[in-house]
């Protein structure tokens, strides 16, 4: 039942600053029932914390100590089709890229990217961009098909519903519907294989949790208008 968060408001002139990602991520961190493992914000939040050791150029990844060392990790900041954007580029290139992520070969079950367009459908290209290369035991990647806006309270809304016993997918969709307008679309990708049932995943201690799909045979994607 372990939780980690990273958030960025200060982008050091590379893109517009944001205002609410600290509150958004901390709302999630402080409300979800479980063991808080790490919080890194602004210049202490790094893309390499989400990337596989040895993957990409430079091969700076260290997810075995951070993102892939907890059950759920929540990132709040800028995003794009390329990945999650960070304000610091000192150690890596400042973008946590799908091509550098192998998730779930450690501990991670659920990755939440509360930022723009990471899960843009693009007529099914989302599967090749994020799906097959990335899923190594992780159950879900939750995020957005479209842009998403800089809100303060989506994290706490998500956490509250996980605590209440909604499934992980329902909790994310409802948090998005309650915090965004109809020009925004939520999305998720999930993996399954014979013997797993991630569709019915709950937060630990709140209901059924599937076994890890280490060698997924099917990936499911859902997007919907908020």
């Amino acid at each position, binding site marked *: 039942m372990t939780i980690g968060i990273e958030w960025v408001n200060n982008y050091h002139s590379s893109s517009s*600053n944001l205002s*609410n990602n600290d509150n958004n991520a901390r709302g999630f961190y402080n409300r979800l029932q479980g063991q808080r493992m790490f919080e890194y914000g602004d210049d202490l939040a790094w893309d390499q914390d989400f990337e596989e050791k040895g993957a990409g150029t430079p091969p700076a990844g260290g997810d075995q100590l951070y993102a892939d060392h907890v059950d759920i990790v929540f990132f709040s900041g*800028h995003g794009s089709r390329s990945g999650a954007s960070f304000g610091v580029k000192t150690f890596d290139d400042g973008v946590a890229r799908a091509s550098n992520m192998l998730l779930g070969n450690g501990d991670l079950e659920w990755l939440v990217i509360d930022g723009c367009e990471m899960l843009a459908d693009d007529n099914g290209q989302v599967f090749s961009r994020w799906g097959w290369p990335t899923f190594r035991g992780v159950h879900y990647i939750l995020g957005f098909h479209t842009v998403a806006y800089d809100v303060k309270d989506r994290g706490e809304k998500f956490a509250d519903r996980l605590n209440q016993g909604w499934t992980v997918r329902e909790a994310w969709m409802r948090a998005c519907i309650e915090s*965004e*307008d109809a020009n925004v679309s939520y999305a998720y990708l999930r993996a399954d294989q014979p013997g797993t049932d991630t569709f019915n995943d709950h937060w630990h201690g709140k209901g059924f949790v599937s076994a890890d799909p280490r060698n997924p045979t099917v990936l499911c994607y859902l997007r919907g208008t908020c």
Partner: protein
Amino acid sequence: MPFIPKQVYIDAEIEERPGPISVYRTANGGTSSRELRQGLLRRWERWREVFSIDGEATDLGDRIAFLGESTALEVYLASESVWWTDRTKAYREDPGEGGVPDDDQAVHLARRFIETTFAPAVDLTDVVVGEQVASVSTSPDAEPRSQRVAVAVTLRPVVSGRPVFGPGAKVRVSFADGAEPSDVAYFSRSLEPDGEAETLHPYQALERLRRDRRFTDVIAAGMELHVRRFQLGYYSAAPNMFQRYLIPVYLAEGVVEGSELDADLFRLYLPAVDMDARSMKEVSVRANPTVLSSFTSF
């Protein structure tokens, strides 16, 4: 001659003389905690009956919620909002046997349902039709299969001819299996008129946009703000947030050109009435009136 700030480009129609704007306070703005609570219990009983909920609810403080195997109902304390869900049909990954209505049908069905169930006191004239699409991939080499599994109709209120923005003014009805709704989110506040207030000139608001801390660094780095929508209206906070007044705002949407992101889009609200800190606090929501210049959410 209006002053247009440097490095801010207006690609939207600007209403040059918006004039005074009507002010609306919420019906529960002056209500005591005890009355709020009694009101919530009354509304809970009403909606429990309407949606045939039979089971034990949980009091979560800011709402009463029922989460059953097949249905769910949430009734909020701070606004007249209610959210009902058929969990067997909403958010599904495959289409129901009854099929998904087309857009026109869905709008008709949603309007009929809202009129007969809620009888809203304000005009719900802004309509957006969205969808829920599911895709499945069975191997990296196979083409994924996609299908529309639900249609969502969102209706937004217009008050005194002005749109109401924000998450607290949204009526969303979705259909996943025939003509019966699968999910109904009715986020609304009862309003009472309370005079008029002078609005800021749009160019004054745009100057405040340029000075916003979100943009000071990128403007200093030579990037440009392109404003694509700039509209006067009201802001209604999330349904679980207490709010005394609908806040008159300019909605500013646009993009930062020159950013490292593919799409560095922004949408924020600039108070359209020049309020000092005391006024802002009096009409605001939550404990913190955030900032005087802009906000994105409470």
